[in-house]
């Protein structure tokens, strides 16, 4: 499908890393502190992006489960750095109209007095456009 292919290319370009370098060792999923909370695990992101299977990834909440902790980036033996694909898919998703994961009107309910600014800033940065 040309649309899907186009999407795949965009995601790969945005991630800036090469899914073909993956040797499917699974160290990313092994090392992920949030791996068990994810419907699609980090290694599946790499493989599915390589296959061009982007739609299911865009529609899973796994893209909001990534903690951006760089553990898989740090430990990937092949320089594939799976978090970059998760980020790329998330960016592709929230760039679409009306797909913001976090909307401004949701914020007040989530606030508490000690919450540092950066929590809100980063939540917006990561989850909305």
């Amino acid at each position, binding site marked *: 499908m040309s649309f899907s292919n186009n999407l795949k290319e965009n995601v790969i370009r945005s991630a800036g890393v090469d899914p073909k*370098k993956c*040797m*499917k*060792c*699974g*160290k*990313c*999923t*092994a*090392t*992920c502190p949030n*791996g*068990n909370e994810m419907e699609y*695990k980090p*290694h*599946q992101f790499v493989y599915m992006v390589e296959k061009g299977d982007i739609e299911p990834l865009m529609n899973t909440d796994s893209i909001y489960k990534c903690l951006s902790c760089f*553990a*898989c980036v740090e*430990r990937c*033996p*092949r*320089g594939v750095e799976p978090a970059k694909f998760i980020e790329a898919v998330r960016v592709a998703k929230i760039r679409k109209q009306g797909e913001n994961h976090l909307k401004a009107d949701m914020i007040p309910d989530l606030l508490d007095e000690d919450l540092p600014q950066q929590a809100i800033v980063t939540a917006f940065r990561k989850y909305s456009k």
Partner: protein
Amino acid sequence: MQRIGVFVCHCGTNIAGTVDVKAVAEAMKYENGVVFSTDYQYMCSEAGQNIIKDAIKEHKLTGIVVCSCSPRMHEATFRKAAQSVGLNPYMVEIANIREQCSWIHKDMATGTEKAIILARTAVAKVHLNAPLTSGETPVVKRALVIGGGIAGIQTALDIADAGFPVDIVEKLPTIGGKMSQIDKTFPTLDCAACILTPKMVDAAQNENIKIYSYSEVSGVKGFVGNFEVTIKRKARFVDETKCTGCGLCTEKCPQKRVPNEFNLGMDQRRAIYIPFAQAVPKIATIDADYCTMLKTGKCGVCSKVCTAGAIDYTQKDEFITEKYGAIVVATGFNPIKLDKYDEYAYSQSKDVITSLEFERLTNAAGPTAGKLLRPSDGKHPHKIVFVQCVGSRDTRECGKSYCSKICCMYTAKHAMLTREKYPDTEVYVFYIDVRTPGKNFDEFYRRAVEEYGVHYIKGMVGKVIPEGDKLIVRASDLISNEQLTIDADLVVLAAAIEPDKTARPLATMLTASMDTNDFFTEAHPKLRPVESPTAGIFLSGACQGPKDIPETVAQASAAAAKVIGLLVKDKMKNNACVAHSDENMCNGCSNCAKVCAYNAISYVDKEFRMPDRTTRVRRVAVVNDAVCQGCGACTVTCPSGAMDLKGFSNKQIMAEVDAICK
């Protein structure tokens, strides 16, 4: 002026079918310098060869051209024939009118026309041929083996058995190498010591073998057949000729807290030590870094207890020089350091160990006398996790991009042995791929799974978390797409292997080439796997690439066979078609040496008389005939044209060009 004979072969109808051989022979009669030309059914037959021999004698030929099949087929035949009647074999040229003419053309006119041109080209070349003689260099009938592991021992034994003296240089106090640290060997599970130590003893007792233990190569000069090697014999502060290996000193030495490298630091030895019971040579060595006497001048216990009077605190490093005809590199491997892989907590927990440490933990002569006990608390582990590919197949700077090849099999061995000895222990192996290409290898691995119930999980360990007396292993199971957590008692890391650190400086001394991973490169990856491109340097064992024991031994014997093939000759016949530099034209610019793959070119300062009777010293290139392989790379890089290749000289090739284009 040459007197040239031309001999045109019919090759039955193979040539005569599409080439008018008579016409070719006839046409050649009118070529400059040709004094005889004929044709015959089969030139390579005895009768054909006699025609050539007779003509050479009768017509006093100085050069011949045989128009026949490819020179790759019969050049040697015709050269021999010529030589038998006193014509230099390099005065023979072949015009390939079969493979490159009659067989590819259907039309007689075309075939004949081309055959005439090819013959004319060969005649043009012969005009410029000069008699060549292969130089000869005497071969020193002694070999050097660098490294005394199983590779070096096997190579040395095979060479010695063929009757040649051979020296082993080993940097440690004993030969035996990595194999001496291994408990059992896959896939047969025989005890490594049981098969290795007899070989070590054989080496020690073989009168053709001399072992320089605790020694290193510090300098190499010369070339194939004539190497001159300087060996540094490190001071061991024990007189080798006097020490009986009784071991009393190693029991009495008061310095007890020296990490024992033979057991990878898992227990301690004394400052004077014999690495292990079966060490060869069985001679004590004082570790200068720890010896109180050497450091402070106070102690001397070992000297007091030694009845042989072998202790010598004043011993100094000694250098000896020896000549060799061939050198075998057998420097072996080491597991990589794991300081860049601390997600596996190697430096944070004693119970995270490498596979080689595991070998020592299961070895009867090891720190636990063969009982599998945790290094931290000496308890028996009930859950063990093996991690494969730690540092192998890792393209980052800290890793090795290659597969270390032996880990899949030794891990299967460890897993199987553990389950056999301790059936109450759960064993998990995390793998990316299980690679078992070898005789009975896959069967072995399957037995670990099917008969011994080892849990093989397709996935990787991502983090090891030492928590209390457990090791929380976080891993992935890619088949079931889940993340697993295992609370293990012991984690064993299959660390990647890398060439020994001494290999790189050694390669520089030997002018042998290495790849980016510091493995020695072969002269040809398929066809000359045990030779270095540098003539006279041979490769044995893991210094050339990761290898298991059977492969190492096979390569070791292959290297020995190559060495024997070299040493058996009294003199070495060099390639006759070698490069030669005209010193009158040579600029001494060094460009030729830069492109020489064999380091055959060196430079000397030479005095020249100038036209005005003064003298001038110039640097000029000198080709070593014994080393040059005759590729010609140097000839093209030479700006002045001083460098030329015998047998394929500039003028010869240009004469061929001219003849073709005529």
